[in-house]
């Protein structure tokens, strides 16, 4: 039996390093287990020379390790030196395979793990938990015994492995540090996601490197790269295909690996096996998140949601007693958080109960100006117990949650937000109550919302502007929950998700149908409502079918079309907040048009019978529905009449609408379009963009798709549910007052948003040096002139090295008087900014012809 240590720390990222450092400083017996042969693998995989940032800046660092902004290399060096100086007991190449309790079985402590197979079926396994000490088994077969375990393995997970004979050979790799350092090799890239494409293109970029790069693609060749490269972003896939066409590299379709030998690889192709030269294999076939491993250790997650984290006590202890979870795996994705937690957790384990978490000052600052002298803990408890959706949260979750939220004290009559403000945050009332002004013309028409409830959920769910003004009905204390915090909350606390869903359905019904309906009126509908997910293109209603159910578009958007003369003709575009299906219910008869999801959407399905009963009870509602319908009838009539005389115009209109939806306009809130009947290609729009934003253009006019002289340049669509926001460690991407999605200065340059944006509109670049004034350029030719300065000029004039690269994208020129510079600077009127529903309307077709 191996000797027993007090503490085993798994993973030497910032969290694990700091924990081990503290353990060493306290003189606890410990071991730091790291699967790679160096410290902090995640950070050592950042791109070379990456400028690592130390956000959030207000947070104090509390760790035996030092950390400040700097180059990746320098930071890793400091940590390595410090680790040696502290005499941390590190064990490299020690990948932990399993962690088992070796004490007696803990009565009643059984964990249920649900695993879902690809076909949708799921199986459940039960794990009996055993008390410490823990036996930690390494992949080498060695076992280490520890009283407590700190799990700090991050969220990177393990790359999926190539499975074929010979796949364990050393030249089968899963990563590429520097594509420009590889010379004169035959390289096979497996995997056609963005990472694989990026590697392949990097290796083949410079012909002087003389690499022969082959990309294996399981899918068949197709003119539509969305089919042949389903997991990659379209611009990346197109670029790869272009490289292939240019003879820079080879893409082999319908090909898989059969066997690997030194220097050679055997491929299984459609026409049989083929053996080709191969010095290096780079497999980029995704990675498995560490969740399976973590669950097998007896650690429970808060929900089955992909975004869920382990359930932890205030001292980071998981549901397996004696196993602690910290760092990115615990839901704290910034290095500073990780370092602090490493320190804290060891202090806690060592019996220091008086230690206040390092974020205490941040929280204190949040509560400082509020009435009532309460301590941070009292505030957290008060908010948790008075707000229904927060009730199930642990104190640790409350702390983290509050870091991303704001508490506001509002005096009676104060406006909390106005109708048409944009905002995607959710509000919860901890004290007092508010009034929703339902009629902008009449301040007496209000709906009260009381203590403990929430409001503003529409912005959160649909990403659209506020539908009504909300004022404080009495002195009130509200929590404004940022979109990120609200999403996290929903995945951590399933009860909160359900509560938000029910409230939002009710509110949405009341708002859409208004006509003086009350909660009691719609109670039956709310109870029988079902939320359904629709993938892009999925049909919600089919023309000619029977059916009486009503659908509300809750998220995403829909397209309504109708077969005329055997061809589908686009009738209208329905943004979130619209409802469909009432015609068949009121007029009887089959569905008069087809409604399908323009993009991935969510609809609320209301049973037709319950709705019919509501209509009977409430004649005003029927009248309103009829008037809504009349407008629809008019559109149908208009299209029908047009069909005779202008059939090509109607066709063109349908196809243009489809083109725009295909290019992401269905999820856009505001998009730049270029009318190529007017564009002279002067690129003044790009120059204007650069000159109004630190000298870098956020728009590529020429790139992008066109249809019928309508061009969608590479520029941000300001999506309703921006994918770029989904994985930003410092939450630097926000939605601003005019609905713009922007990146603030806390960006750490990790490049996640660039990878996540499906439209390829984000780029990483560093601020160029200041240019001489326009006048001195015009008179004396000083500097590079208007627009983005060429790289060479930037290099020559950079004083003191290039500043760090950060993510940059269109911010709709927010804060610049006059609005978007691209539009203002277009001499011919070709550049326009539009919102989709206004652009894709029949009225617009009329004005165009």
């Amino acid at each position: 039996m191996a000797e027993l240590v007090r503490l085993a720390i798994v993973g030497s990222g910032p969290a694990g390093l700091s924990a081990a450092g503290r353990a060493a400083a306290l003189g606890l017996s410990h071991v730091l287990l790291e699967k790679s042969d160096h410290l902090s693998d995640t950070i050592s995989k950042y791109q070379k020379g990456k400028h690592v940032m130390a956000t959030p800046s207000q947070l104090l660092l509390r760790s035996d390790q030092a950390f400040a902004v700097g180059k990746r290399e320098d930071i890793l060096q400091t940590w390595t030196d410090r680790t040696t100086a502290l005499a941390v007991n590190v064990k490299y190449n020690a990948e932990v395979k399993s962690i088992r309790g070796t004490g007696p079985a803990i009565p009643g402590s059984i964990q249920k793990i649900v695993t879902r197979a690809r076909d949708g079926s799921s199986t459940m396994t039960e794990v009996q938990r055993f008390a410490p000490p823990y036996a930690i088994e390494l992949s080498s077969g060695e076992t280490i015994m520890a009283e407590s375990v700190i799990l700090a393995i991050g969220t990177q997970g393990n790359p999926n492995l190539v499975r074929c004979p010979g796949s364990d050979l050393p030249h089968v790799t899963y990563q590429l540090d520097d594509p420009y350092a590889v010379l004169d090799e035959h390289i096979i890239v497996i995997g056609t996601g963005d990472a694989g494409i990026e590697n392949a293109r990097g290796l083949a970029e410079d012909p002087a490197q003389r690499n022969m790069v082959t990309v294996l693609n399981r899918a068949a060749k197709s003119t539509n790269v969305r089919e042949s490269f389903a997991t990659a972003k379209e611009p990346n896939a197109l670029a790869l295909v272009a490289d292939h066409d240019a003879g820079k590299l080879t893409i082999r379709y319908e090909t898989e690996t059969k066997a690997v030998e030194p220097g050679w690889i055997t491929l299984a192709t459609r026409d049989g096996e083929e053996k080709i030269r191969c010095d290096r294999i780079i497999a980029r076939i995704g990675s498995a998140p560490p969740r399976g491993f973590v669950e097998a250790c007896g650690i429970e997650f808060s929900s089955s949601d992909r975004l869920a984290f382990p359930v932890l006590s205030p001292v980071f202890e998981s549901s397996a007693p004696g196993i602690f979870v910290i760092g990115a795996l615990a839901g704290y994705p910034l290095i500073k958080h990780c370092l602090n937690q490493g320190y804290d957790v060891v202090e806690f384990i060592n019996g220091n109960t008086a230690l206040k978490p390092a974020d205490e000052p941040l929280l204190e600052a949040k509560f400082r100006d509020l009435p009532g002298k309460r301590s941070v803990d009292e505030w957290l408890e008060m908010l948790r117990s008075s707000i229904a959706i927060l009730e199930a949260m642990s104190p640790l979750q409350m702390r983290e949650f509050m870091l991303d939220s704001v508490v506001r004290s509002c005096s009676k009559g104060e406006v909390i937000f106005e109708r048409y403000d944009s905002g995607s945050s959710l509000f919860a009332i901890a004290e007092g109550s508010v009034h929703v002004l339902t009629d902008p013309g009449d301040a007496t028409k209000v709906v009260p919302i009381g203590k403990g409830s929430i409001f503003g959920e529409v912005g959160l769910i649909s990403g659209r502007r506020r539908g009504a003004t909300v004022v404080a009905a009495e002195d009130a204390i509200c929590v404004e929950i940022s979109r990120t915090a609200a999403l996290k909350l929903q995945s951590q606390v399933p009860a909160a998700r359900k509560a938000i869903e029910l409230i939002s359905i009710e509110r949405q019904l009341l708002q859409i149908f208004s006509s003086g309906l009350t909660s009691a009126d719609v109670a039956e509908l709310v109870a029988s409502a079902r939320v359904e997910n629709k993938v892009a293109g999925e049909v919600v209603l089919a023309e000619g079918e029977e059916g009486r159910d009503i659908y509300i578009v809750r998220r995403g958007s829909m397209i309504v079309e109708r077969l005329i003369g055997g061809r589908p003709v686009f009738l209208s575009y329905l943004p979130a907040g619209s409802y469909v299906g009432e015609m068949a219910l009121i007029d009887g008869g089959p569905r008069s048009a087809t409604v399908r999801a323009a993009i991935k959407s969510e609809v609320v399905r209301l049973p037709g019978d319950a709705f019919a009963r509501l209509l009977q009870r409430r004649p005003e509602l029927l009248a309103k529905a009829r008037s809504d319908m009349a407008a629809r009838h008019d559109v149908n009539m208009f299209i029908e009449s047009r069909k005779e005389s202008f059939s090509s115009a109607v066709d063109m209109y349908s196809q243009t609408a489809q083109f725009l939806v295909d290019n992401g306009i269905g999820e856009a809130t505001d998009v730049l379009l270029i009318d190529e009947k007017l564009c002279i290609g002067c690129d003044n729009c790009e120059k204007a963009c650069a000159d109004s934003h630190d000298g870098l253009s956020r728009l590529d006019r020429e790139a992008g798709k066109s249809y019928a002289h309508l061009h969608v340049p590479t520029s941000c669509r300001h999506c309703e549910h921006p994918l770029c926001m989904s994985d930003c460690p410092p939450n630097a991407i926000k939605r601003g007052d005019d609905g713009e999605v922007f990146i603030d200065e806390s960006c750490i340059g990790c490049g996640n948003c660039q990878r996540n944006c499906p439209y390829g509109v984000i780029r990483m670049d560093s601020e160029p040096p200041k240019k001489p004034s326009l006048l001195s350029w015009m008179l004396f030719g000083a500097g590079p002139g208007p627009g983005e300065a060429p790289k060479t000029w930037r290099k020559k004039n950079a004083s003191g090295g290039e500043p760090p690269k950060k993510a940059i994208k269109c911010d709709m020129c927010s804060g610049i008087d006059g609005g978007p510079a691209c539009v203002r600077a277009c001499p011919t009127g070709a550049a326009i900014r539009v919102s989709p529903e206004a652009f894709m309307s029949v009225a617009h077709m009329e004005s165009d012809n």
Partner: protein
Amino acid sequence: MASTPHAGMRADHKAVADHDGFLRHARFRWIKVALVVCLIALIGYFAADVKPRPYGGSWYGYTLGTAGVLLIFWLALLGIRKRAMTAGRWSLKAWTSAHVYLGLALVVIATLHTGFQFGWNVHTLAYALMMLVIASGIYGAAVYAVLPSTLSSNREQLTLSQMVEGIRAIDRQLHEAAQPLTHSYTEVVLAASEESPFATSLWSRLSGKYPHCATARALTAFQNVASSPDTGPAFATVETLLIRRKAQLDRLRRQTRLKALLEIWLYLHIPGTIALIAALTAHIVSVFYYW
């Protein structure tokens, strides 16, 4: 079939930013203004009883001259407006629209200012330069109106650098494919693939005519031989590649031609403006000097 949320649930203030070209901007506002200006100038010309005959030095001539000078300076300011990305509610499209129509009105104002008295002097030089600038401007406005849709169709969603890259790719393949051919053929092929896709002469760029095109020559050479002993499979490959190169080259050349046609006039318009301002200054100074 459905109801949408209140119009203006979002972005209500800028539904569809008015979507008209510079010529139609704001329902032809500036054409109307320009016509009124011309009309007033004409009425004034005939109403003002200038003895012995209308000329620049009369009070009415001074009025028109001053208006003309101010207008010219304002017209010239477009060059700065275009490049100074200051904040504020201005639109370059509106400026261009006003520029075009008021620039045309200048013909009337300035011509009336001369009182139809021309001669070989600095005054007439200023007038001629002005007319040159205006004539080039008319050409510019015309190409801005008609060429963009051709420019757009021709590029078929490609960017200029993608076009160049496409040709380079063919060139790499040509180099390989031409290896097995006999020396004389390799030579023409290499000449073709080494030919820069961009025109060397301005005339070629503008006319789209490339009489010495090496690709065309190589293609003729290949197409003129009936199958002879050395026409193996390599021969056919090279020929296909040459056809593709020619097609892509033609597209690129059309693109550069269109771009050139859209830009060339500025090489008259801008230096013309500078010369005009110089001549105008001389004209004004001399008038006051001899007063």
